[in-house]
C-alpha cells in the first residue's frame, strides 16, 4: 500500500450533495408569495395526491385483517366489522412465513453489512491513497453500474452453481453485495473526500494506523455515508425478485417475494388471497420503517448523482 501523502490528496469536490431538505427553495419562496388561497390549494392538492400513494397500502393492511371470504368479495361495509388476525396466524402455521421472513432478513442484513465493510474500505482506499492505475480501477468499478444483473442471470447461475452458491443464502447475499458495491464505493469515496485531510493527518502524527484512524477518528464523520450504503443495500436485497427466483429453488430457502409467488403459483386450486395480502403487508413493513426513519440518508444517496434504476 502506498503511504498517504499530501500530494495524493484530492480536494473534496462538492458533487452536488446539496441538502435536499433545506427549507428555502428557489422559485417559490415560502407561504407568503402563494397567498392564502394558493396555500390552501397547495395543501388540498398535495393531500389528495398523497392519498393516491398511501391509500393502497392502508387498504392492503385493512384487507389483510379481513377473513378470506371477504377478501375475495367486492369491497363492502362488512369489511370493517369482521376484522381478524386469521390470515396472519394461518400464514405462520401453514405457510411457515416466519422462516421466509427470516431468510429475507438474513440475506438483507448480510448484504447491508458486507456492502458497508467492503465499500468503506474501498472508498477509503480510493479517496486517500493513489496507486498505479487507481483511477482506472475506480472507473472500472463505477462502469459496472451500467451492467444490468438481469442480463447476466445465465452466466451467474452457472458460475454460482459451480461454486456451490446456488440454493445458498450466503451466495444470494454475495450476489446482492456485488451489485450494490459500485454505488456504495462511489458514496463512500465521496464521503471520505469531503473530510478535511488534516483530521486523519493529525491522527497519523499521534501514531494511529490507517485502520485505527478509520475506526476511531473518522467514524463519526463517515457514518452518514455508511448509513446511505447500508440502507440501499438492505432495501435492494429485501425487495429483489428475479435474482432470487433464479438462484434459489429450494423451498426452505425462499425469500419473502418467492414465498408470495409460491402462494400465487404453487398452491393447488384457489389462491388464498387473504394469506397473499398478509404476506405482502409483512414484506412492506421493514421498507416503510427504514425509509420513514432514515429518509435523509436515502435522499443523500439519490442526490449524490448515481442511482440504480
Amino acid at each position: 500500500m502506498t503511504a498517504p501523502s499530501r500530494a495524493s490528496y484530492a480536494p473534496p469536490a462538492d458533487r452536488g450533495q446539496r441538502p435536499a431538505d433545506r427549507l428555502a427553495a428557489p422559485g417559490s419562496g415560502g407561504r407568503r408569495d402563494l397567498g392564502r388561497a394558493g396555500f390552501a390549494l397547495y395543501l388540498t392538492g398535495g393531500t389528495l395526491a398523497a392519498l393516491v400513494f398511501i391509500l393502497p397500502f392502508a387498504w392492503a393492511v385493512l384487507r389483510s385483517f379481513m377473513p378470506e371470504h371477504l377478501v375475495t368479495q367486492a369491497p363492502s361495509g362488512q369489511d370493517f366489522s369482521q376484522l381478524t388476525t386469521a390470515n396472519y396466524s394461518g400464514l405462520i402455521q401453514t405457510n411457515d412465513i416466519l422462516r421466509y421472513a427470516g431468510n429475507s432478513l438474513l440475506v438483507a442484513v448480510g448484504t447491508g453489512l458486507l456492502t458497508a465493510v467492503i465499500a468503506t474500505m474501498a472508498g477509503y482506499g480510493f479517496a486517500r491513497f493513489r496507486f498505479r492505475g487507481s483511477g482506472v480501477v475506480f472507473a472500472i468499478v463505477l462502469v459496472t453500474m451500467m451492467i444490468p444483473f438481469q442480463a447476466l442471470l445465465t452466466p451467474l447461475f452457472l458460475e454460482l452453481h459451480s461454486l456451490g452458491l446456488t440454493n445458498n443464502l450466503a451466495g444470494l447475499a454475495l450476489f446482492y453485495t456485488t451489485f450494490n458495491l459500485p454505488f456504495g464505493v462511489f458514496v463512500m469515496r465521496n464521503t471520505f473526500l469531503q473530510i478535511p485531510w488534516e483530521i486523519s493527518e493529525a491522527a497519523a502524527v499521534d501514531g494511529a494506523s490507517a485502520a485505527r484512524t478509520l475506526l476511531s477518528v473518522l467514524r463519526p464523520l463517515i457514518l452518514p455515508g455508511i448509513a446511505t450504503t447500508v440502507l440501499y443495500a438492505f432495501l435492494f436485497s429485501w425487495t429483489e425478485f428475479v435474482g432470487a427466483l433464479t438462484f434459489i429453488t429450494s423451498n426452505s430457502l425462499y425469500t419473502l417475494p418467492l414465498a408470495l409467488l409460491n402462494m400465487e403459483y404453487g398452491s393447488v386450486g384457489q389462491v388464498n388471497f387473504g394469506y397473499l395480502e398478509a404476506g405482502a403487508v409483512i414484506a412492506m413493513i421493514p421498507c416503510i420503517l427504514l425509509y420513514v426513519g432514515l429518509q435523509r440518508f436515502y435522499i443523500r444517496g439519490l442526490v449524490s448523482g448515481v442511482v440504480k434504476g
Partner: protein
Amino acid sequence: MVLVTPAVAMVALFVLFPLGFAVYISLTNWPLIGSYHFVGGSNYSELAHDPQFIHSVLFTLLYTAIVTGPIFIVGYAMALLVRGGRFGSVFFRTAFFLPFIIGLATESFMALLELQPDSGAADFVLSHLGLVHANTAWTVSYGLGLTAICVFVTWFASGLTMMLLMAGMQGIPTELYEAAEVDGASWWQKEWRVTLPLLRRNIALALIISVIGSFLAFNQFYILTEGGPGTSTQPVVMWIYEEAFVQYHLGYATAGAVALVVVIGIISAAQFYLLRDSNDKQAAG
C-alpha cells in the same frame, strides 16, 4: 491497494467475469446439463428471425413508450409541488416516494388481488364510476393487462423522477428567480425560461433512468399477467428467463441477454456522460 482489493475482486468475479462468460456461452448451444459445442454466431442470427424474441423486444419498446411520458409528467408535477419546502412538503414527498421504496414485487402481489374480477378494488371503483363492468378480469387480457400495468408502474416509478427533478430544482440559485421577478416575469415565464433550461441535465437523467428501468421490466409482468395471454405480454428479461431456465436453452437465451447488455450499456453511457459533465462543471465553478 489492500483496501480496495475485496471490492475489485467481487466486481471482477461476479460482474466482469460473467460478462465475458456470457459472450462465450452465447456462442455455444449450452444446455443446462450435458456437453456443448460452439455454434459461432448462429444464436444471434436465429434471434433475428425468432418471432417470439422479436415480439418481446417490440413489446418492451411499446411498454417503454407508453409509460415514460406519464412517469415523467406525474413526477415533474410532484416535484413542483414539493420543491418549495413549504409546510407539509416533506410529508407529501415521503408519500409520493413510498411505492418506489416498497418495491414492485410486493406491490404486484397487492395489485394481483385488486385486479381480480368482482372482488378487486379496481373493478369496484371503476364500475361505480361507470367505466368498466364489475367483472372485468384485468390480468388475463393483453390490452387490459398492459393498461393496468402501465397505470400501476406510473404510480410506482413517478416518485423516483420527482426526487431526481426536485434535487435539480433546489439547486437552481434563487437569484435567478429574483432577477426574473424584477424583470416582471410571470410564474410560467420563470418556469419556462429559468427552471426548464437549467434542469435539462436532471430531466435527461430522470428519463434515462426511467427508460432503463422499463427495458428491464420483469416483476410486474411475471406476477400479474405471467407474460400472457400466451406470451403476448412477455418483456425481454422474461423472455431471457423463460428461455434459459424453463426451456434450458442457455446459449440461445444468453445471446438475447448480450444484446440487452449492449443496448442498456449504450443508454447508460449517455447517463455517465451527463454525470461526468455535471461534475466537471462543478469542479470548474
